[in-house]
C-alpha cells in the first residue's frame, strides 16, 4: 500500500468530482431535496381513512356515549380494545399507530362538571401513538378538533377534555427523524454502488484502466483510494443532510460513533456489490442497469422512505434479506433510540455482508486483459 499513490488518486477523484457539476448535484443537493420534499409531504399528510383503537377504562354509560359519538363520526373507523390490557404494550405488540384511552374517572368528572357546575372538573384523554407513523399526526389533529367541539358545547374554562400524548416508543420522534437515517443510508448506498460501477466499468471501457495497469499502482491501492473517496463524499453528503434536517425541520437526532461505523460499512458493502456487478456485466451500460436493478428494490423495500411494517408480510420478510435494511435499522437504532444492542446486531450483520462482498469484489475485479 502506498499512501502517495492513494493520495494521488484521491486528488484526481476529488477534482473530477467538483468539476462535474451534475455529480455534485446528485451527491449533495439531491438528498437534500429529497429531505425537503418528503419531509414536507409527510409532515402534512392527509389520510382519508382514520382508523384507530379506543380503550374505555371508565366502562360507564357516559364513556360508552363518548365512544358512540366517536363511532358516529364518519371520518373515524374505531376498534375497541379490552380495558384490562396494557394499551401501550398492546400498541407496541400489534404495531398499532394510535390508541385513544378514556380514563377511569370520565363519568364522575362529567357529572361534577355538568351537574355541580364544578369548572375544575376535567379529564385527560390519552393518545397512545407511534410517532414513526406518517398518518398519526393528522389523526390526532382531527381528534383534537373533535374534542375541542365537545369542550365548546360544554363551555367554560378550563376545557373539560384535555388530550395527552404518549408515545409507544421510549423516545418521542417524528417522521423527519425516521426519514433522515434512511436518506443517509440510501445516499451512501447509491453513490458507492454507482461509484464502483463507474470506476470499474466506465474507466475500463474508456481504456483508462488499461493505462493504469501499465503503472506500478496496485489493484489494492486503486480500490482503497476509491473506497476512501466514497467515504469522504459520504461524509460530506451526510453532513449536508443533517444540517438541512436540523435547520429546516428542527430534527432531534443522536449523533454517536455508530454513524461513521454504518457509513463505512455501507460504503464497503455497496462498493463490493458494484465491483461484482462490473465483473458480471462487462459493458458500462449493462453494469449501470444492473446497479439500478439492485438499487430500486433496496431503496423502496428496506425501510428508507416508510417503515417496513407498513408493507405486507411477505415483503417484510423479503426486506430482511436486503443489506440496506440493516443499515437503516442500525442507523435508526443509534440515531433515534440510542439502542446500542440493536445497532451492534445490525452492524455485525452488515459488517459480515460487507466483508464477504468486498472480498468477492476484489477477487472478481481483474485489470489484466487475459
Amino acid at each position: 500500500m502506498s499512501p502517495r499513490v492513494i493520495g494521488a488518486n484521491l486528488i484526481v477523484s476529488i477534482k473530477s468530482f467538483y468539476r462535474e457539476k451534475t455529480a455534485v448535484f446528485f451527491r449533495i443537493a439531491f438528498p437534500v431535496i429529497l429531505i425537503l420534499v418528503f419531509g414536507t409531504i409527510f409532515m402534512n399528510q392527509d389520510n382519508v381513512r382514520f382508523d384507530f383503537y379506543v380503550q374505555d377504562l371508565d366502562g360507564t354509560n357516559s364513556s360508552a356515549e363518548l365512544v358512540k359519538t366517536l363511532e358516529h363520526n364518519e371520518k373515524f373507523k374505531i376498534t375497541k380494545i379490552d380495558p384490562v390490557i396494557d394499551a401501550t404494550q398492546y400498541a407496541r405488540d400489534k404495531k398499532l399507530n394510535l390508541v385513544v384511552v378514556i380514563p377511569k374517572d370520565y363519568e364522575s368528572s362529567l357529572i361534577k362538571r355538568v351537574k355541580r357546575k364544578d369548572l375544575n372538573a376535567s379529564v385527560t384523554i390519552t393518545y397512545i401513538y407511534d410517532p414513526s407513523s406518517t398518518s398519526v399526526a393528522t389523526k390526532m389533529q382531527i381528534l383534537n378538533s373533535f374534542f375541542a367541539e365537545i369542550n365548546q358545547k360544554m363551555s367554560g374554562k378550563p376545557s373539560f377534555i384535555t388530550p395527552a400524548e404518549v408515545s409507544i416508543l421510549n423516545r418521542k420522534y417524528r417522521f423527519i427523524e425516521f426519514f433522515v437515517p434512511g436518506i443517509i443510508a440510501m445516499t451512501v448506498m447509491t453513490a458507492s454502488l454507482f461509484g464502483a460501477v463507474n470506476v470499474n466499468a466506465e474507466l475500463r471501457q474508456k481504456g483508462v484502466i488499461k493505462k493504469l495497469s501499465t503503472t506500478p499502482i496496485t489493484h489494492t491501492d486503486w480500490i482503497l483510494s476509491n473506497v476512501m473517496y466514497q467515504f469522504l463524499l459520504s461524509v460530506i453528503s451526510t453532513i449536508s443532510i443533517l444540517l438541512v434536517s436540523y435547520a429546516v425541520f428542527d430534527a432531534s437526532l443522536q449523533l454517536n460513533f455508530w454513524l461513521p461505523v454504518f457509513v463505512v460499512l455501507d460504503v464497503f458493502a455497496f462498493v463490493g456489490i458494484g465491483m461484482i456487478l462490473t465483473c458480471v456485466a462487462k459493458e458500462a451500460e449493462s453494469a449501470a442497469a444492473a446497479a439500478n436493478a439492485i438499487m430500486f428494490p433496496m431503496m423502496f423495500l428496506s425501510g428508507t422512505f416508510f417503515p417496513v411494517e407498513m408493507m405486507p408480510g411477505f415483503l417484510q420478510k423479503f426486506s430482511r434479506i436486503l443489506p440496506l435494511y440493516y443499515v437503516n435499522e442500525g442507523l435508526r437504532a443509534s440515531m433515534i433510540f440510542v439502542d446500542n444492542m440493536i445497532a451492534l446486531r445490525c452492524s455485525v450483520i452488515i459488517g459480515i455482508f460487507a466483508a464477504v462482498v468486498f472480498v468477492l469484489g476484489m477477487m472478481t475485479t481483474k485489470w489484466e486483459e487475459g
Partner: protein
Amino acid sequence: MTKEAEHTIEVEKLTKRYGDLLAVNGISFTVRKGEVFAFLGPNGAGKTTTVEIIETIRTPTSGKVSLFGMDVTKKKRKIVRRIGVLPQGFSSFDRITVRETIQYHSRLFNCRNTDIDELIELANLKDKSKEQFKNLSGGLKQRLGIAIALVNNPEVVFLDEPTTGLDPRARREVWDVLLGLKKKGKTVFLTTHYMEEAELLADTVAIISRGHIVAMGSPGELIEKNANYLALTLQSVDEKVFEIVQKMGFEPVNANHNNIKVRVQHPDDVQKVLNAIKDAGASFLSLDVRKPNLEEVFLKLTGAAFREDLAREVAQ
C-alpha cells in the same frame, strides 16, 4: 540480481490464443537497446496482442517473452517501473487537466524528480497545459499520452498505434514528438498500420500478418529484398506505346487516362523504353520513375491477407 540481457526485448515462439482464434502464432524477434522497432501490420494482425503481452497486461498462451532479461509473466512489478506505455486508444480522466494528468502519473511512479515542464515541452503541449482532458483533440490526447509514457524516464517506450484516427497534420505533429524521442536515444517499440510512419521512424520493421511475422529488417533492406525494381509511369501516351513496351518484353499495366505503369529492373531499362518510344514516333506527356516504398513491400507481403481484410471492412 537479474542478468541484463543483450537485447532489451526478447520474444521466442510467442503464441496467444483467444478461444478458437489464434491471434499470435509462434513469433520470435528481438529488439536492441536504443533502436526504434516498428511492428507493421493490418488491423487484426496481432500487433496489439503482442505488444500488450510484452507490456505485462496480457498473458501469453505459450512461448517466452522477456524484457531486460526478466520474464514478463513473473516480474510485472519490476518491469512496469522501467517501461512507458501509450496504449491503443489512450484515454484518461475527463476533468483533469494536462498538467495534472502528468503530475498524477508521476506520483503513481513515485517519481519526485519528474520535470513536468520538460515533458509538456517535449509533447508540445505548452498552450494546453491547463486544458481538461475531455476538451483535447485526438492528436493532443495522443501527445499527452506520450508525455505520460515518459514520466518515469523509461528505458523502453511502447507506443501502440500512436497516430491511428488522426488527421494528416495531427499525425505529423505526433511524428515530430516521436522523432524527438528517437533523437534522445530511447528504445521505442511502435505498432502501426501506416507504412510512412514505419519508414520515417523505424530502424527495424517487422511486418506481421495474421499472427505471423512475414518479414523483418530495416526499411531499406526490406525494400531491397522484396521490391528491387523501379516503377516507371508514362502519362498521356499514344495508343501505340502499350504495344511497343510489351514487345520489348516488359509487362505494362494500363492505368487510367492513357497512363501506363511498367516495372523495370535496371535504370538502363528506362532509357531503352524511352528510346523505343521515340524510334517508333510515338509520344507521351510526362514520365515518373520511382523506387518502390515500404507500402509496396507491405502490400506484396501481406497481399492476400490484407486484401481479404480490406474486402471484409468494405463489406461491413
